[in-house]
């Protein structure tokens, strides 16, 4: 996971240094906006953050999915469960361990991003950068919580891995598309939609089904607050669900 993160950050570093002067020709759709001060920088910030919508999902699935299911699959549950440790402590310890290691890996990317931005933009994007970083960390808390909820349901790692990917990349997206096409409503309450705030703090690009709107500024504070509350709710509800399920978990 760390290698993938380093590779992606190196690729984007290369892209940033090589293609900044070519941005207007690469993104001809935004031609009118390039006269707006700071737009190029915001666009680069947006592109860097685009990766942060998926990278934490992969990292959390990698570190979080087997957390509970592997205890059953590898029979370590027979060692741990009869010990006098409350199960909620066991689950929360594993949760914070998974969150910490996911943050540590993603932090490598964010540090590279910070250095590149400092070198190229000389501190122009300081506020959106730190906003995006904070929201990424919150997103990690929520996606790891969802991952743990799924992991407590299954007794096999593979099912847990696949289910999180299906839920996040297929079911959420399918639901989004159906909602937008049939009811013309963007389901902002889905985790993937609220996580898009990580990139929208740089540039408020909305890519709804059949529609495409761009604001040359970052998302407003009300948008940020809404996404923050949704991610927080996902964290709390998923963790509560995981704790309830884990408390009743049996090893047959």
């Amino acid at each position, binding site marked *: 996971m760390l290698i993938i993160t380093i590779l992606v950050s190196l690729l984007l570093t290369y892209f940033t240094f090589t293609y900044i002067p070519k941005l207007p020709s690469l993104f001809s759709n935004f031609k009118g906006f390039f006269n707006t001060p700071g737009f190029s920088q915001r666009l680069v910030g947006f592109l860097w953050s685009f990766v942060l919508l998926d990278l934490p999902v992969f990292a959390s699935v990698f570190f979080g999915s087997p957390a509970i299911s592997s205890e059953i699959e590898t029979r370590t549950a027979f*060692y741990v469960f*009869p*010990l*006098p*440790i*409350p199960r909620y402590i066991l689950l929360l310890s594993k949760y914070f361990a998974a969150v910490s290691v996911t943050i540590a890996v993603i932090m490598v990317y964010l540090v590279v991003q910070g250095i590149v931005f400092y070198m190229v933009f000389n501190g122009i994007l300081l506020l959106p950068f730190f906003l995006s970083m904070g929201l990424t960390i919150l997103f990690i808390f929520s996606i790891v919580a969802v991952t743990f909820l799924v992991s407590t349901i299954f007794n096999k790692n593979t099912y847990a891995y696949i289910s999180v990917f299906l839920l996040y990349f297929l079911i959420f997206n399918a639901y989004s598309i159906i909602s937008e096409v049939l009811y013309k409503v963007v389901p902002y309450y889905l985790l993937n939609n609220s996580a898009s705030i990580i990139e929208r703090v740089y540039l408020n690009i909305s890519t709804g089904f059949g529609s495409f709107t761009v604001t040359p500024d970052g998302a407003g504070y009300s948008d940020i607050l809404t996404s923050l509350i949704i991610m927080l709710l996902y964290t709390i509800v998923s963790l509560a669900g995981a704790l309830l399920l884990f408390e009743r978990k*049996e090893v047959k």
Partner: protein
Amino acid sequence: MPQIEITNLTKRYGKLEALSDFNLQIDQPQCVSILGPNGAGKTTLLKTLTNIIKPTSGSVTIDGISVSENPMLALQSVGTLIEQPEFYPYLTGREVIEFAARVKGANRAKIKEELDHLSNLLSMEEYLERKTGTYSRGMKQRVCLAVALVMEPMILILDEPTFGLDPRGMKEVRDLIINLKKERDIIILMSTHLISEAKEVSDRVIIVDRGKKIYDTANESNDNVVKVTLETPIDIKHVNMKLENVQLTFLNESTFLLKLLNGMDNSKAISQLLSLGYKVKWAEPYNDIEEKYLKSVSL
């Protein structure tokens, strides 16, 4: 004094009733063996006792504390070995035992003392520093036993403790159980497939089949049959023992059963043998567990 009480315990997996209205009370230090064929419900019983599964109905209490309602407190002084557990492969045997000791409240000095004692007791010195991922089944079983024994529990729950061990290891574990019984006032509740093992180490044997308790030596009177072993074999065909109120059944040339009749007691029966010049090597109350097992357990 440690105590285990299981009342009307039922455990269902869908339509399958793994345990059915099971009752068991152990209120004094002793070794109790649960004997039964595969799928009889032995492991399910031990799993409910250790909070690995929850009962469908009924209650399980350890020292008066409900295991399902307050597992942390109920299992504080319980050592367990259930279903040959695996350990995290990146931990050494020492770390595995250390973790168990730490969650049971041991400080650094106590952990060291426990590790030294257990590695010596279970002959694990050679491989304790190796990662458990490289262990053989027998090595893992010894570490499992060490985890169960750490911090001197008052109750030991052991699911087939000799599984995976070579004959020498099996004997060592049996001797360990016998010594623990002698040295400390603890309850040992173990499941086994081996009738000989149950007979050798247990004070009480319970036979389980299809989730039900079908035989318990605690409910049987052991007083009316005595198994006697003589120091020297005798010629069974020509022997003429004239014993009063005793019926003799020879098992082999040096062992026979004395069935005591008309209120005859053990010591008087043995005295009669001694007065006839027979040297008694061993005499014990007799329970034919094997016979009971084969008669009562379904095929």
